[in-house]
Each structure stands twice: as C-alpha cells, then as structure tokens.
C-alpha cells in the first residue's frame, strides 16, 4: 500500500514540473505498558503513519510532512510551492539508483508477532510476586515494543524498504526501610523478546537496597573516577557525540585534524551493530549502512554527514549516510514528521581486548559513578559538563565501601578522552539515552580528570 503513495507522489511531481523529489513513508505500531505503583496502570496501542517529501525546484529545497497520504496531490503541490518560495539552495540531486535494494528487507522481526496480551501476562506475573516482597514501596516503569516500517524512494529511481522492531523497558523501584527511602532503576534495550523480566525488576530493587548508609564525600579531584557505561554513555551522548556531526558547529571541528585523543581510543558509528536499537539497513536518505570509524588510534578520521543539509560541507573528510529524521524530549524520537538531519546511529566506544585485571582493582581508590542525571545540559561546543550523581559508590583497594550521597561531578569530555591515563574497560554495554534517538555502546571508563563538587 505505501508503495502506491510513493509512486503517485513521483507521478504528480513529474506532472507539475519539480526537478526532483524524495518520498519517505513510515508506518509505526507501538505497544506500551505502563506500570505505576506496582501494577499495570495503562495499556496503550498507538499507530502512526505518514509521508514526508523533499522537493527540489531550481536548486531550491523544501520539506513537507503529513499523515494524510490520501491527499497526496495537495501535499506534493504544497511541497512544490514551498520549493518555489524557498531560499534553501542545494547543489546536486538525491542519491541515485546505484544504491537500490530491490528486495524488501525484513530485519529483526523477532518481536513483530508479540501481542499486548502476551506482554501483559509476562509482566503481571512478575509484578504479583514483587507485590508480596516487602519492603518495596513503589515500582514504576514502562515497557515498549515498537514496529517500524519505512520506505524511501526518489526521482533518481532509488527505492528501499525495511521493517524492524525494538523493545525498551525502564523500571524504577523505591524501597523503604525504616526512615530510609532508596531508589533503583534498571533499563533494557533489545531487538529480541526479553524473557527474563525477573532479572530486570530484581536489578532495580537490588540497587534501591544498596543505597542505604550513603555517605557524603569530600569535594575536589579524586584519584580516579570510574564511570559505568550508563553514566559515560550519557555524558558522551550530550557533550561529545553531536560534535561529530559536521552540521553541529562545534568549535572542535577546525581542530579535529590535529586533535589527539588517548591512543587506545577507537570510536565507530555503526548502524550495522548486531541487535542494537539503532541498527538499520540504510539511513533516511537511502545510503546503505556501514560502520564508520570516526576516531582511530586517538586520531579523528572523519565527521558524520548527509547528502543535503543545513550547512555546506566545509570539512573535506565527511562520511555520508548518517541522515535520520529525529528529535529529542519526545517518546517518538524517530519520525517522518522531522526534517532529515545528521545524527549518530549506534556510537561505539571500542572495548580493549585484553582483560588482565578487574577494573575496580585498576581504580584502586576512588569513586564509581553508576548513574547520573543532567547530562542533557552539557555543552558540546566546548565539551564541558556538570552532572548530578544519582547512584555512586566509594571504592577502596578495589572494593565497594559504601554508597555516596548525591553530588555533582564536572569535567571536559575532550580533556578526559585526550588523557593518556584514561583506562577503557573490556565489556561493552548498550545504553539507550532516554527521550533522544541516541544509542551508545561502550565499556566502563576510568578517568582522573573529573572534579567532585557538592
């Protein structure tokens, strides 16, 4: 069905004299179960579908989106009108048919057939068992399964279509023991049907318990801070990764050629990463997915880019193929509604190969920061950030001594990643950044370049 709309759009655009057109069609189904106070509170089914057009007329580009593809004629005409009025000048054309993939690509379809009833039953069983386990005071969270079908086609005869599913879960537990109120969270991102829900719930409860006897820590710069993948991933997502988009305007663009990160640092944007949230066969302009090395041996190789964008490409070494239609602060972070822009897919910090010692032993004495909040306010222009430590522990002689009181930690992500003493862990973990389209896959990091302030 959605191919028909695309064909119709092409025909109309030809008839009304557009120089070129690109059609993006998306159909989504979302199943969401909300848990409040330990019971299933809301069950939500949502369907979203729509069309987005980019048109070129006399080298002027426009963008229109609508969820009424049955009015395709009016939408194409509006797109032409916008292109006529637009002053956004572009060179060249949409990507051509050499990138065609004639066979429909069904990817990661493990979750497609799961019904909302099945999901509910699996979760209910766990919730009933938790309700009996005191002293869990509260348990909130949500479980989401999303199926997405997208088709990209353009007047250069390029057609691609893909179907994929993904699952996400966030659980927040509050426990009360006497006067002590502790909180713990756990998160899941998967392309498979997750079977062991009990582990997810237990993990958040265990974290909540572990927060008893929190101690205040002294301010200043500790010998070392070990950042969990969840904590480091959030900092990277906001303070660092956007600067690899050549349209972001980071002040580091001009110095990337000479930037010298820790020589063990290898950063790859990988939309082909097996089973990750942002794994796709092609980007939202139709470029085939492939791993793109942005930093290797501590040196920056290339920035991430797309075909047409807001800014002319001033940087000679830019990868094409990182165009996605995304936004932040929203449940639906990937949608046809949003104009295409450059963003990372699965941003991978490669783990070190050899495992000689436990990372806690390598830290020795210091702080282990497991969960943070506030990274979204980081300044990616400069790399500076201040974040709040939600869950952290004091480490002595490689052992966890006690949980720490909430505090703020600050640093500059460029200084941290340049530091020769930076230690990169050996076990990768996928971290989805809430309410953003970003996904980071990375190990723990140990740095001596961060400061604690209360």
């Amino acid at each position: 069905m959605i191919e028909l709309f695309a064909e119709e759009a092409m025909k109309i655009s030809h008839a009304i004299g557009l120089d070129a057109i690109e059609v993006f069609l998306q159909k989504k189904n979302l199943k969401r179960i909300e848990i409040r106070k330990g019971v299933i509170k809301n069950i939500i089914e949502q369907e979203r579908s729509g069309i987005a057009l980019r048109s070129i007329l006399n080298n002027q580009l426009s963008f229109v989106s609508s969820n009424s593809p049955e009015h395709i004629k009016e939408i194409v005409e509006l797109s032409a009108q916008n292109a006529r009025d637009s002053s956004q000048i572009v060179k060249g054309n949409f990507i051509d048919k050499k990138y065609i993939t004639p066979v429909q690509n069904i990817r990661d379809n493990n979750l497609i057939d799961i019904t909302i009833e099945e999901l509910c039953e699996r979760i209910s069983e766990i919730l009933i068992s938790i309700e009996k386990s005191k002293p869990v005071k509260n348990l909130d969270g949500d479980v989401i399964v999303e199926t997405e079908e997208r088709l990209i086609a353009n007047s250069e005869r390029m057609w691609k279509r893909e179907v994929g599913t993904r699952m996400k879960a966030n659980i927040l537990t509050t426990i009360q023991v006497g006067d002590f109120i502790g909180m713990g969270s756990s998160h899941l991102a998967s392309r498979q049907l997750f079977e062991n829900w009990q582990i997810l719930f237990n993990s958040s409860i265990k974290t909540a318990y572990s927060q008893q006897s929190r101690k205040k820590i002294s301010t200043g710069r500790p010998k070392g801070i070990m950042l969990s993948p969840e904590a480091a991933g959030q900092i990277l997502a906001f303070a660092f990764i956007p600067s690899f988009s050549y349209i972001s305007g980071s002040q580091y663009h001009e110095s990337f050629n000479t930037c010298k990160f820790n020589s063990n640092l290898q950063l790859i944007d990988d939309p082909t990463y097996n089973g990750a949230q942002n794994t796709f066969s092609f980007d939202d302009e139709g470029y085939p997915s492939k791993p793109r090395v942005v930093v290797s041996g501590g040196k920056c190789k290339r920035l991430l880019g797309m075909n047409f964008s807001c800014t002319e490409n001033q940087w000679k070494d830019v990868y094409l193929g990182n165009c996605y239609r995304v936004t932040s602060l929203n449940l639906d972070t990937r949608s046809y509604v949003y104009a295409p822009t450059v963003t990372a897919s699965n941003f991978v910090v490669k783990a070190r190969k050899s495992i000689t010692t436990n990372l806690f032993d390598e830290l020795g004495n210091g702080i282990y920061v497991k969960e943070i909040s506030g990274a979204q306010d980081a300044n990616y222009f400069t790399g500076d950030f201040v974040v709040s430590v939600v869950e952290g522990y004091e480490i002595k002689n490689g052992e966890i001594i006690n949980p720490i009181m909430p505090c703020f930690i600050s640093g500059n992500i460029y200084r941290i990643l340049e530091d020769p003493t930076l230690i990169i862990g050996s076990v990768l973990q996928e971290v989805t950044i809430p309410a953003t389209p970003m996904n980071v896959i990375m190990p723990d990091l140990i740095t001596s370049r961060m400061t604690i302030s209360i």
Partner: protein
Amino acid sequence: MTLSSTASDVINYALKTDADYVDVRIENTFSNYVGLRNNSICGVNTNLQKSIGVRVLYKNCWGFASSSSLDNSSIKRIVDDAIKCAKKTAANNSKPPIQLAKISSRKTSVSDSCEKDPQFLEQKDRITLLNNINKKTSSVKEINVLDLKLLENHTQKLFLNSEGSEIEQILIRASLFLGSSVSGSSNFQKIRSVGFGGVGGIELFEKNDFDKFHDSFIKTLPEIAHAKLIKPKEQPVILNEEMGWNLCHEFCHAVEADLILSDLSPLNNQIGSKIGSEQVTIIDDASFKGYGEYYFDDEGVKASGTLIIEDGILFDFLQTRETAGESNVIPTSNGRAESALYYPQVRQSNTFFEPGNYTFEELLEVTRNGLYVCDSFGGNADTIHGNFQLDAQYGRKIEKGELSDFVTGFSIVGNLYTVLGDINGMTKDLGSFPSYCGKNGQRVSVGAISPQVSLKRMSVISNIAQRQIRKIDFTGMKEI
C-alpha cells in the same frame, strides 16, 4: 465527513460497548518551520497532522489507543483496541480502581485570534522576516554561528466525552528562537539562545516588544563573547525572568499530583506547611496570556488558575481528573497531552512567581554585592531529594548595588525544598517567553513567565572543567 462528526461517531460507537466512560480527542494541526543559519535559509518545512486518541474506563481501569489515521475502519479499531486494553488492565489490576473527579459537561467552541494566520501565510513573508532579523543581528563581529528558527502552529482540537462534553478550541502560536555561538579574544565559544513568542501569528515579531527583545539580544552578544569566567562561591543572586521561571518550573514538578501520589515528591501531607519566604506566591494559570495558554485542558476541564504557594505556604497541587478523584479534590485543568496520540497527564501550563513590589534597581540595592544570573541553558531537578542544577548563559556581577562585569561558565545549584526560603524580593514586572517541557516522553508548550527574583544566597558552581571547584558550604543539601 467533518472532524466533529467523526468524533461523534466514535463516541456513539464506544457507548454501545460496555465502557463506563469514554473520551475522544481529535487534533488537526498545521505547523510551519523556517530556519536560517549563517545567512542561508536551511529549512522550509510544513507539517500537516491529524490524530485521534480514545480513552476508556472499563471497571474503572484505563485503556488508551490512538492513531494518525481517521478513516472509518481505523476509528472502530481504535475504540476496540482501547476497550481491549482497559479490559486487560482490569484483569491484571488488584489496586483500588480509578475514580474521575466530577466536572460539569460543556458544549462550546473557542478560538485564538491573530492577524497573520499561519495557514494562509506565504513562505516568502516568513523568509523576508527572518532575513530582516538576520541582517540586523549578523553585524555583531563576535558571532561564529547564528541560527534563527521561526515556528508557527495552528491547532484545531476537539474533545468529546460520554458525559456530554463537546469542546472545540483553536490554538495559534508563533515563536522565534535566536541561537548563536560567540567568541572573543580567548576563542572560547559561548552559546546564546533565547526565544520570543506567544499566542498569535508572526505579527508578534513586528511589534515594539520584539524590537526591544532583539536589541537586547544583539547588545549582550559582544559582552558575553568577552565575558570572564566566574569564581564559584555561595553568594546573593538576582535571577532574571528566564532563570526565575526555570527555578519556579523545576519546583512545580514537585507539586504535580501524579508524582506526589507515586511518592516521587516529598510534598505529600505538606499542604499548609511553610516552604518558602513570605515573598513567595506561585500560580499556575492556563488562562493567563502566555505560551502555555489554553481554554480547556485535554480532559475537558475549563482552564483556570491554581494557587500553589501563597506567601510561602504550600496551598495546592496540580491535578488531572484522575489524581483529583484519588485525592478527593477538584481538578485544576492541568491534564495535558502532547497531541491526541498521547494520553493526558499532569502538566504545568503558565507557571510563575507572583510579581513583588520592587523595581530592578531596588533589588540591586537590596542585594548590594552578588551576581545577576541570566538566561538558562538548561536545567534539571531530582524531585525526590530536591537537588537542582540550572545552567546560566551568562551573568553580571553586582557590586555596590550596581551591575558590573559580564561573567559566564557557571551553574546555580541547590535544593528545591529549601531554596524558596531564601527568596527576599521580586520585581513588579513579569517577563514572558515561549518554552517546552518534557515528561514521560511527551513534550508540551509552557509559558516561561516570571519577575526578576532575588535570593539572599545561592551556590554558584563553575561548569568549566579547567577550573578547580571550591568547597561550598551547602547546608541546604540533605536527604529527604
């Protein structure tokens, strides 16, 4: 078929089922975006969206389904899905059932007015406006990147429920965001980002208020580019209107009744307690003129003002019909959803400190020595423990009751549940800006409205990593 008759069909179909309560929301939105970056137009985007959301109560459990398709078969399926979801919830729910607070049903149609309706405006007019603003701004030599973003929305919203309400409202908004990165001799880039807008069309940007705002933006850019870094310490501060609103907004997350009922805010049982100085009165008012204004919330409750804090005493919480029913109070018209695709939850609208009796000059005199904290770059708060952090775009030192040097690279931190006690004055005038707030994956427009607010002490920390952060005596921080 009109949207109104579609909504009636949904209600009629749903009433034939065994649902106890049904509401249907349909939205038809025209939105337009034009972006200009570094003298070039970089986006001319139009978005046309329709959406429908059906919410049912079955045995006092919710079911919700939504779709972007409004054809006949979809509509029936959505109602069926919503009822299926509600039945499934009822089968798995052992907790006390949901009781909606009672409201009177209404049949009405209301609309914003504007001189330049976004639906009928030509892109050329918008591009001319942006080019003129750009021309005036880009003369500042310290600018590295200049981004102008013009957003307009025309939204028709229909709400019908099984209690007989039939409400249509048309909301029209325009906003313009000016963003820039600037650098001075140190080549250290600073970000400047501010917004202007409200109810209406782009005529808002052709008036004196906008010219004043724009002039102030241009005037501060070179000063910020050459601003020095600040020494962190606890000191008296005056928050400008945007920072004042940010503080108020972060606090008011803790009076959202859904967080209170989920034990994610410690303010339950605190009604009547003193939690701020006598200078502090906080109001949420969706009927107040601002970017968060509406006539009815997404549960059909008529927009009204809620007195949250009066003279430092906690007075009321923000409610939906569900939370109000659970707490046996009246709903406060704060049930809002991002669109009909989403279900309503407790959200702020226009939340603000009530203005005080001071002029800005008088506040400077009261403060004598301290910091004038201006324009937020972002912020976050932990409503459970109360820790908050607000990043400022820039500040000005206050020395002997007068504004002096520009400074940058700092955040203010504190505890939401003690900071209101340190407020010792507010100006007579309110500033109003457009803003957005995200919660549980839903983004809604809110009015950033506030007077200038002075506090006798505030912890100011550097957010520039190269500087050693001094130890701060942060007595306000404690576990709650």
